[in-house]
């Protein structure tokens, strides 16, 4: 009788370790896997295989869980910045300057989001810049000021508070299949100007 009871207790223990442990492993591993699979280029992160059938199971699980539509491999590529040049997390209340080179693309946009994927609440309704909207200098250079307060030039409102992230989307770019080879100097740099 007693050995049977011990067997039942052991089976029950193994069952609950399997269920709870499996759940914990899954919940905790998805963000880790998302971080491992990305390629970092300066402040920007890219998931080169996210827009194709070659995405690995963890990436597919992340895409499914978050209702994200990656940019297709034949469509272009998206780069995400959640930190500035020094590696500090982007904050809506701070002021940043985004400037530098952009890879060749037929169309690009730079948008600002909250971490949950919704657009930042802004007084002007502007949430992104396209190449056609950027004011440029005589030499063709451009810069975007990202901060809550209005600023002359290319101002991208960042909302009053909380973390924000930037998404740079390049459509019809030859980079789609080879983003991992891109140098940081080929992408705009994100520099913190001030933070109250």
């Amino acid at each position, binding site marked *: 009788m007693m050995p049977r009871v*011990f067997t039942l207790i*052991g*089976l029950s*223990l*193994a*069952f*609950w*370790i*399997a*269920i*709870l*442990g*499996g*759940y*914990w*492993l*899954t919940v905790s*591993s*998805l963000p880790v896997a998302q971080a491992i699979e990305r390629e970092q280029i300066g402040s920007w992160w890219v998931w080169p295989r996210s*827009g*194709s*059938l070659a*995405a690995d*199971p*963890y990436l*597919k*699980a992340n*895409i*499914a*869980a*978050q*209702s*994200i*539509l*990656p*940019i*297709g*491999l*034949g*469509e*272009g590529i998206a780069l995400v910045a959640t930190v500035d040049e020094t590696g500090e997390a982007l904050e809506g209340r701070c002021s940043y300057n985004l400037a530098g080179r952009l890879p060749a693309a*037929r*169309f690009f*946009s730079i*948008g600002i*989001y909250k971490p*949950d*994927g*919704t*657009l930042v609440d802004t007084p002007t309704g502007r*949430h*992104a810049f*396209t*190449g*056609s*909207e950027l004011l440029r200098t005589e030499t063709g250079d451009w810069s975007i000021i990202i901060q809550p307060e209005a600023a002359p030039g290319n101002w991208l409102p960042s909302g009053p508070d909380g973390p924000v992230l930037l*998404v740079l*989307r390049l*459509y*019809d770019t030859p980079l789609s299949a080879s983003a991992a080879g891109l140098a940081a100097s080929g992408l705009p740099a994100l520099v913190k100007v001030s933070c109250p």
Partner: protein
Amino acid sequence: MMRLLIWIASGCIGALIVHLSAVLLLPNVTGNTVAARSLARLPINTLSLETDGSSPIIRFADPTALYAYCPFELGTSPLRIVSAVSDIPMSFVFVAPNGTIFSAFTDRAANRGVIDLRLGTAEQIDALADLDDPANPPTEYRVASPHVSGTVVIKAFMATPSMREAARDALNTTRCGLG
């Protein structure tokens, strides 16, 4: 004590199996993918435009694009999508029910100013190929879908906010349906 360790070790192996199964099954059962959401919310085999600037289907939608969705069920025949090229850049993304993109291209793939494509299962695409006249090859693109259902996401990009109406027109003149 030894038996207890064996049960704990068995539980850990079981946890690994549960974890791997969950990761593999999650995209198919979550019901939260872009394709699953559009299949559940929108009419099938018809193009539905986004009603406002904020996308109800996709998180992290591009604010410089208008989105239209054509959820498809390929049970009876292939899907046909026809779109005339205009000044508005467009892209076409084919999404499986598990959220994986199985094909994508932009309007640069247009032939004589028109995107004309058939989306079908491998069998349907083979059947179309059997009917082709070798002396007069078809000009349409053919995309084989690995799944019977899914969704096509069509984006029209606005270089400036004033191009919203032109982008909407570009999507409104795009046709998506069985045939």
